[in-house]
C-alpha cells in the first residue's frame, strides 16, 4: 500500500514518532516542564508553599498548557531546512491529510503525556480530588486545540520565510481563549460551580480545529508554490 494517501500519512505519522524517540529532549520538554513546575514552587516559596496548595491546581495547569507552545515554531522549519518539506509537496499526496498525521503525532508525543501526568501534578500540588476529572478533561481537549493552532502558525512561519513573523505572537492570541476556558473549568469546579460551559467551549474549539486546521496548514505550506 505504498504510495496511497493513507499509507503516506501513516508513514509520516510513524516517522514523526520515530524522530521523537530519537530526540527525546525535544519531545519530553513539555512534560518535563509540567513536572518541574510542580517541583519548583516549593523551592521558590519555602515555607509559604502551603499557601499555594489551594490554588496551585490552576497554576500548574496554565503553565503545563503553555509549555505545549515551546518549540512549536520549529515543527516545519526543520523539514524546510533539510528539504523534507519539498519531498512532501512533490509527493502529490493530499497535503491536508499529511498535516493531520503530523498533528496527531505531535499530540501523541507532547499532549497525551501531559494529560496522563495531570493527576500526578494535581496530587503534588494538592488540588482537591473532586477537580481532577475536570482538569484531565479540559487538558485533553485543550492540548488538542493548541497543537492544531500551533501547527497552522508554524506552517505560516515557514511560508513567510523572508518576512520575520513572530510565531509566538501568532499563537498566543489564539491560545489565550483556550487557556481561559481550560483554567476556567478547573477553577469553577474548585469553587463549587459547574464546569460544563467552559468544557463545552473547548469541545467546540476542538470540533472546529480537527477539520479546519489541516486544511489551513496545507494552504499555508502551498503559499510558496503560489
Amino acid at each position, binding site marked *: 500500500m505504498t504510495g496511497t494517501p493513507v499509507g503516506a500519512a501513516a508513514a509520516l505519522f510513524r516517522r514523526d514518532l520515530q524522530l521523537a524517540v530519537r530526540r527525546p529532549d525535544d519531545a519530553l520538554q513539555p512534560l518535563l516542564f509540567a513536572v518541574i513546575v510542580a*517541583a519548583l*514552587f*516549593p*523551592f521558590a516559596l*519555602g*515555607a509559604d*508553599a502551603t499557601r499555594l496548595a489551594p490554588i496551585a491546581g490552576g497554576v500548574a495547569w496554565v503553565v503545563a498548557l503553555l509549555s505545549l507552545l515551546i518549540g512549536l515554531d520549529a515543527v516545519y522549519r526543520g523539514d524546510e531546512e533539510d528539504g523534507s518539506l519539498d519531498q512532501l509537496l512533490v509527493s502529490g499526496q493530499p497535503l491536508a491529510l499529511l498535516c493531520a498525521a503530523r498533528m496527531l503525532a505531535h499530540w501523541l508525543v507532547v499532549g497525551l503525556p501531559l494529560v496522563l501526568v495531570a493527576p500526578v501534578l494535581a496530587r*503534588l500540588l494538592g488540588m482537591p480530588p473532586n477537580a481532577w476529572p475536570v482538569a484531565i478533561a479540559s487538558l485533553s481537549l485543550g492540548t488538542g486545540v493548541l497543537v492544531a493552532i500551533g501547527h497552522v502558525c508554524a506552517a505560516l512561519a515557514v511560508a513567510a520565510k523572508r518576512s520575520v513573523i513572530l510565531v509566538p505572537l501568532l499563537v498566543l492570541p489564539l491560545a489565550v481563549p483556550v487557556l481561559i476556558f481550560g483554567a476556567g473549568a478547573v477553577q469553577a469546579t474548585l469553587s463549587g460551580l459547574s464546569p460544563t460551559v467552559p468544557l463545552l467551549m473547548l469541545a467546540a474549539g476542538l470540533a472546529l480545529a480537527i477539520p479546519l486546521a489541516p486544511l489551513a496548514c496545507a494552504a499555508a505550506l502551498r503559499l510558496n508554490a503560489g
Partner: protein
Amino acid sequence: MHPLVRWFHRFGSPPTFYRWAGAAQPWLFAAALLLGAVGLYFGLVVAPADYLQGESVRILYIHVPSAWMSLFAYLFVAVNAFVALVWRIRISEILAMAAVPIGAMFTAVTLASGALWGRPTWGTYWQWDARLTSELVLLFLYIGILALYHAIEDRRRAARAAGLLALVGVVNLPVIHYSVRWWSTLHQGESVKLFGESSMHSSMLWPLLLMAAATHIWFFASLAGRARLALLEADSDKAWVREALKQSLPDASPPHGASA
C-alpha cells in the same frame, strides 16, 4: 609533578589497581557486614524506642547513614572528576563513574526511608519541604550524570563530560546540607556533630556511628567491584586483562560476582 598525581599514576595504573582492589574487596565487604550487623543489633534491639516516635525511630539507623552517604558519594565523584579532568588520570574517570550509581542508590534509599519515617512522624509520606526536595534534586543530578554518561559512545569522552557535569553540580551539596537551617523545614536539624556536643543520646549515637562506618566501608567495597569491571571492559583488548582473566578463571568468584 604534583605528589598526588604521582601517587595516582603509581597506584592508578590499571593492572596495579585491579590487583589491589581485587585483594581488598573481600575484606572490605566482610568488615562492612560485621559492623553493619553489630550496628543494626544495637540499633534495632538494644537501643530504646523513642517515647514520642515509638519503634519507628529505628528507621534512623537506615535513613541517616544512607543520607550521609548520598552526600559523601557525590563528593567522591566530584573529587575524582576534578582529578580526571585536570590531570587526565584515567583511573579517576573510572572511579568517578563507578561511584555514581552507588550514590544514586543511597539517595534513593534516603528518600524511601525518609518517606516511610515521615508517615508516622509527620503524618505524610511527602512534603515539598526544602530538605526533602533538595535531596530529590540530588537524585535528579545523579540521574542526569548517568544519562549524559550513557549518551556518549566513546567511554573516555563520556566519563569526562559526565564528570564535568558532576563538578558543576557540587553547588547543590551545601543547599542540601544547610537547607534545614536556611528554611523552616519539617525536617530534623543537625543533631550529630563531628565537633562539640551531639544532641543525640549515646545509646542511639553509637549504633548510628557503627552503621555510618559500615556504609562507608561498603561503599568502597562496592566501588572496587564496579571499578574493576569497568577497567576490564575499557582495556578488554590489553594484555594485562587477558592475564588477569586467566588467573581469575580458576578461582570461584570472577570479578562479576564482586559488583554486588
